[in-house]
């Protein structure tokens, strides 16, 4: 077989493959609304890591970790810092932002490792004043934030999804009943990384695998909405990545 024939055959195979993949192998991401419904109010609180932008060694370093908030009543939406790990270094260097919880007193509860007590302890951060207080309360269960005031629990994405299906869903469970909040065709590798109830128990905030914050209404009173907001600048060489959504104070 001549080289020209080989070349033609190779190009044909690659083009055919590309056409087949282009037609059947691509599942579009779900489309979300971007304009907020009037019923959507309050503040979204989430945890982000600030990383350096290096591509090759030294690999990206985590420069700091912070809790951010977005006030849904503002226009345009923009993120603001609540508190960073670097602000809490006098308490400990082991601050656990990933399972922070909202309390009913306009505060964020953060667990940390106290060297002096040699045990896990709690810090309460007031969202408005940013004032930090140490708490002597007993530690709440880490999974309690998955259940709202009506006793409804958000199912984790792997609980309600067939791993091979081209579908993304969000469910919550009430007693023995599983109720669907959202279901849409989506690529196999698309999922919700974390999700939380709003304090009213009527809304859900979720972080998807594309790093987008999505708002859902439990009763489908409005369509799922993607938050478009102005990101804070973290210096020329740094970037931020949302790790998890902490909650929605509405």
């Amino acid at each position, binding site marked *: 077989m001549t080289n020209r024939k*080989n070349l033609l*055959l190779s190009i044909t*195979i690659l083009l055919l493959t590309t056409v087949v993949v282009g037609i059947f192998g*691509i*599942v579009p991401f779900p489309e979300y609304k971007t304009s907020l419904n009037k019923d959507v109010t309050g503040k979204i609180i989430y945890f982000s890591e600030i990383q350096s*932008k290096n*591509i090759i060694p030294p690999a990206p370093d985590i420069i700091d970790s912070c809790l951010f908030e977005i006030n849904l009543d503002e226009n345009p939406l923009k993120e603001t810092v609540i508190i960073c790990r670097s602000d809490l270094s006098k308490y400990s260097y082991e601050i656990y932002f990933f399972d922070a919880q909202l309390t009913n007193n306009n505060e964020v509860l953060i667990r940390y490792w106290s060297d002096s007590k040699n045990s896990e302890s709690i810090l309460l951060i007031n969202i408005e004043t940013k004032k930090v207080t140490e708490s002597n309360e007993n530690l709440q269960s880490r999974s309690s934030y998955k259940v709202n005031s009506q006793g409804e629990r958000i199912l984790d994405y792997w609980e309600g999804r067939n791993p091979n299906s081209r579908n993304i869903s969000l469910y919550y469970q009430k007693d023995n009943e599983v109720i669907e909040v959202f279901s849409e065709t989506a*690529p196999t590798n698309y999922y919700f990384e974390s999700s939380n109830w709003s304090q009213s128990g009527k809304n859900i905030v979720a972080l998807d695998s594309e790093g987008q914050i999505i708002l859902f209404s439990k009763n489908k009173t409005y369509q799922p909405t993607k938050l478009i907001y102005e990101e804070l600048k973290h210096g020329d060489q740094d970037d931020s990545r949302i790790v998890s959504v902490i909650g929605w104070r509405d």
Partner: protein
Amino acid sequence: MDKNTKKLLQKWLENNLISQESFNKIFEFENNSIPTQKSKIARAITLIGSLFVLSGLLGTLPLIWMNLAYWAQLLLLIIITGFLFYAASYSEKFEEKFRFIFKSSERVSSILFLISTISFGAVIAFTLNIVNQTNILDINDDIAIIIVSFSVFGYAAYLYQRTEMVFQHIAFFYSLIFLLGSIGNTIFSNIEPWAGGLFLVSVGFIWGLYTYSNTLKPSWLGYFLSSTTISIGTIILVTDLVGDNVLLEIILLILGSVILVWASIQLSEQIIFFVGGLGLVVNLPRLITELLPDNIWPPLILLLIGGVLVAVGLYLNTIRENLLSSND
């Protein structure tokens, strides 16, 4: 002189295949080409010294790397790449009797060229990173990866065309996969896993085609890269599309393995037989377990199938060798 070579020479001499004069010439040549005891000691000392230098470098570089400015890191990478390329080109010209540690000077230059390919990729990636940091250009990550993969592919293709050696063949193949993968990822960012498998099957098939037409050498390596890539692609494709139906999945994988075994016989290429045979060895017991759950027979059947496969493999190989020797 090597004992086996000496025995062989004596056997040839006794059977009048070579003259006494030729025997003496070969004997003298072989004796001069192997290292003396003194040179062995010198080699050992140099080898130990080189190991110290290497461990010292490996220990020191990470420590100073973090303290170097970006431009200094880039300069260091460029110097390392240039040095590796020069050393590989220089070692290509070595006469065999000057070879050191490695079995041939070809292998030395092949390994040095391979390391220089990795270092070259790092230079391109680092240059793009610095350009981004200085805000001269704003190149997004996808485009940066395409530029890096295209440059590495070009360099690997040049080295393969120049040397046609094993490591350059491997680097050429995987740099092509890297390039196609990065382009595919940019065009189809949310591609389904089966589509990725289909791309692998296509690339493996194309590689096999070029090996078949003797464009790619050595043929065993071309067929090995081709058959393994086709196998991996098929596994991804089948698992993703029919993963819910385990029986169908296993049957399709067995069918694929049988096709590889058939191709190995058609092409008289052992390496494809091994890849296909491995597929059968893995999937036939899975099929038996699927058909006969909780049965004590599967281990015994596994043993029987394994025995049959080994016997068939050896038998096919014998036939092939017989055919080749009769052709000669």
